[in-house]
């Protein structure tokens, strides 16, 4: 007997607009100010008119003095333009903000107990739930309500302005675009000095505005380079011994480079359809073995393959992620021995890689001489990566090194008992969020569970921002009420770790679109059990320590686990 059906309206991109109060009058006013007044509406396609973008993807927020607009460390999905009033951005971390809080123990314990009795009888049964954020507070920071939203505010704005280095945000200035477009945490805190109006643009709208407005695109890219450069250099351990003046000299000489494609996930080949030679040949060559290094290459984002020639091919010897450096050992050796530096490895972009290039002469003059003799000697002695080359090849070829929480199963220990799958289902309303299968290398299986990527390409193209990074934990998760079931994330995921599921009412009826009669689907994926006390239930449930959630973006954790 077929299941009964319930028809409803299929949600669209702007069914739930970003700002409920953004009406035509406001859009008219926005079109009269920069940068929108310089945009050509005719350049926007009919399905994405400029007016609709502004109405659906922007909102105007009012802030009182002291209100925090963005907080350093939060994962942001919006950019802002100051319309009226004054605001400041901090150039150093505000101690008054303390650390971000996780959901309370009591709430998580309640949830863990309640789910034992709440397993529904039909798969993917749904009732609406609302996530509430826990907001950290201290005596210097208070909370208040504003438009159904809880805001943090600084109790003592003049004190903060006196104590910390800040920079003024000017009217019409765009900020927050780096975090919004780069899928990275906020690098500064911005707060209102006076009553102010901010135009908030969610990143999907910003992306579309940039696509059809070359001037805005160029401006954002310049901001992106300038802000990224300063932040990255200030956090690099190799430059820790430099004075502020020297860092500025290095910054002035540093070049910003991008190699590969930001949309690399659309180009990921099937493993068996392309040879390794072909794969490596496609990867943009950044630096070639046997040539003189042109500088210190520091990875700002993305990944790069380090390889050495072997026979007619190239063997992977390491992969580099954010914060890591290429070329340092050759330059250090050159400094110690007084011989010309020659690269012993090649560097290629895997997907895409953003690099900072500190020219060789600047590195030799300003950076490396600041290291102690021992540090310089260690740097000059290249050490082999702790994983076999064939394992490195495997990880890089399949872009698995993107995962910060890859589910790796040791098949020599796994008894295939499926306790992990049962635990996942028990903690997700009876619906497991991963499949215990996936690519296999030697005894390691990389199961189809969300890798929690360094570069979550699933977030590209989501029309509503339903798939996002949780502000508290940094976990990439899906906000179901705003998911429209377009499957963009599922199709974007290069690892097939996002699944579209049909929804059911608790009584068992399939939920269908009232217009087309087709089932309404939602995207689902592993959320690392962020609301559970135990952390990932799968790992907690494995009796043989065969399953682990591990950071493959770093080589060492996997190497240590394999030899445990």
């Amino acid at each position: 007997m077929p299941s009964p059906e319930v028809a409803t309206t299929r949600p669209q991109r702007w069914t739930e607009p970003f700002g409920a109060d953004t009406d035509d009058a406001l859009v008219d006013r926005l079109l009269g100010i920069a940068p929108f007044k310089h945009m050509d509406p005719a350049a926007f396609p009919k399905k994405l008119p400029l007016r609709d973008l502004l109405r659906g993807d922007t909102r105007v927020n009012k802030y009182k003095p002291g209100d925090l607009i963005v907080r350093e460390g939060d994962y942001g999905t919006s950019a802002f333009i100051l319309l009226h009033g004054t605001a400041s951005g901090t150039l150093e971390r505000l101690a008054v903000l303390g650390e971000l809080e996780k959901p309370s123990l009591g709430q998580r314990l309640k949830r863990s107990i309640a789910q034992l009795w709440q397993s529904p009888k039909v798969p993917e049964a749904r009732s609406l739930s609302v996530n509430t954020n826990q907001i950290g507070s201290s005596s210097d920071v208070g909370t208040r309500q504003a438009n159904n939203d809880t805001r943090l505010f600084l109790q003592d704005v003049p004190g903060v302005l006196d104590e910390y280095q800040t920079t003024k945000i000017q009217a019409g200035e765009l900020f927050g675009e780096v975090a919004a477009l780069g899928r990275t945490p906020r690098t500064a805190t911005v707060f209102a000095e006076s009553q102010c109006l901010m135009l908030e643009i969610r990143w999907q709208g910003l992306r579309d505005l940039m696509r059809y407005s070359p001037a805005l695109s160029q401006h954002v890219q310049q901001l992106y380079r300038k802000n990224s450069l300063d932040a990255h250099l200030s956090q690099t351990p190799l430059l820790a011994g430099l004075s502020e003046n020297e860092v500025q000299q290095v910054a002035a000489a540093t070049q910003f480079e991008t190699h590969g494609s930001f949309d690399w996930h659309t180009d990921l080949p099937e493993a068996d359809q392309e040879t390794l030679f072909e794969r490596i040949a496609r990867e943009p060559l950044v630096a070639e073995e046997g040539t003189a290094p042109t500088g210190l290459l520091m990875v700002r984002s993305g990944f790069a393959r380090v390889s050495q020639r072997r026979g007619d091919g190239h063997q992977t010897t390491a992969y580099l992620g954010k914060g890591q450096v290429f070329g340092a050992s050759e330059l250090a050796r050159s400094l110690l021995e007084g011989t010309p530096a020659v690269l012993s490895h090649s560097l290629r972009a895997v997907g895409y890689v953003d690099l900072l290039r500190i020219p060789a002469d600047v590195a030799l003059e300003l950076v490396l001489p600041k290291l102690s003799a021992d540090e310089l000697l260690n740097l000059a002695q290249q050490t082999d990566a702790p994983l076999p080359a064939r394992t490195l090849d495997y990880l890089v070829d399949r872009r698995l090194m993107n995962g910060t929480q890859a589910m790796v199963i040791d098949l020599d220990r796994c008894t295939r008992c499926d306790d992990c799958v049962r635990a996942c289902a028990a903690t997700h309303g009876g619906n497991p969020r991963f499949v215990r299968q996936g690519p296999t290398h030697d005894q390691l299986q990389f199961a189809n569970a969300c890798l929690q990527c360094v570069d979550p390409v699933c977030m590209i193209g989501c029309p509503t921002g339903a798939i996002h990074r949780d502000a508290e934990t940094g976990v990439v998760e899906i906000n179901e009420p705003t998911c429209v079931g377009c499957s963009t994330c599922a199709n974007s995921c290069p690892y097939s770790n996002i699944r579209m599921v049909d929804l059911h009412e608790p009584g068992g009826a399939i939920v269908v679109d009232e217009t087309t009669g087709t089932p309404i689907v939602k995207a689902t994926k592993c959320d690392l059990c962020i609301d559970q006390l135990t952390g990932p239930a799968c790992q907690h449930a494995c009796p043989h320590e065969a399953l682990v959630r591990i950071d493959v973006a770093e080589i060492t954790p996997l190497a240590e686990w394999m030899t445990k």
Partner: protein
Amino acid sequence: MNRPPSPKRSTPKPLPRAVVRTALMLLGVAALWFWIGWIDQSLGRTSYATGYLLFGVIFTLAAYNVRKRLPGLPLGSSANWLQLHIYLGIGSAALVLLHSGAKWPTGWLETVLAGSYWATFASGLWGLYLTRTLPKQLARTSEQYIYERIPILRREILDQSRTAVLSAAGDRGATTLAEFYCTRLDSYLSEPRGGLYAIRPTSTLRRQLMRELSDLRRFLSQAELKASEVLFALVRKKDDLDFHESRQGLLKRWLFVHITLTCVLLTSAVLHGWLALAMRGGVQ
């Protein structure tokens, strides 16, 4: 690779965890021995002391099954529970011998109790052996399979094989491969393996079929040769599926037996304890 320099430290290699845990278990057994001896020397009732302790141990061992059904609660990882289960289980044998005086009991209840305990103990050891040996065997096949999907995959293999053979037979009416398929391969590809294979899987049949198929190649047309390549791969894959079904099924059946025996053991232990306390007499 070109990481910022870090100081090198040398730390002594820790003892393997199994050595540490075994040592702790043996220490526990030794402590138990001295404790029982102390009770005996103070004219206490050692059978009640060991009885209570044994019941607690068996209850703790059985609690692992409950723990598995509470995945979201912070009760300790399943891996730690299993380690406790293994060492407590092995150590419980010493406790049983102390409790029973190393004698086989008389009476039907105590016989059932002792029998169920030792059967559970033996099945536990067998399970320990299986869980340490089967994963490596399963990992050696070319692909990995989820147990519940095996019937579907078997059906897919059957469909692919029949399609390959039929398409070859359509080429100039060549029937050599089709005849071989009908007499030797169709039943092999369509059905799960028999009972003996479930107990002791071998690759004998696979090797034999592949030998026969190899010997047949000289008589095949070009189209049939191409189809035979497909059949080679499918025969191999079917054998892997059967192997996984056999070994994974064995683990699942073992767990069923072990839990059933545990239920019998718990029931008879409760009855035994109740009777022992009800019939308790002598100086209080």
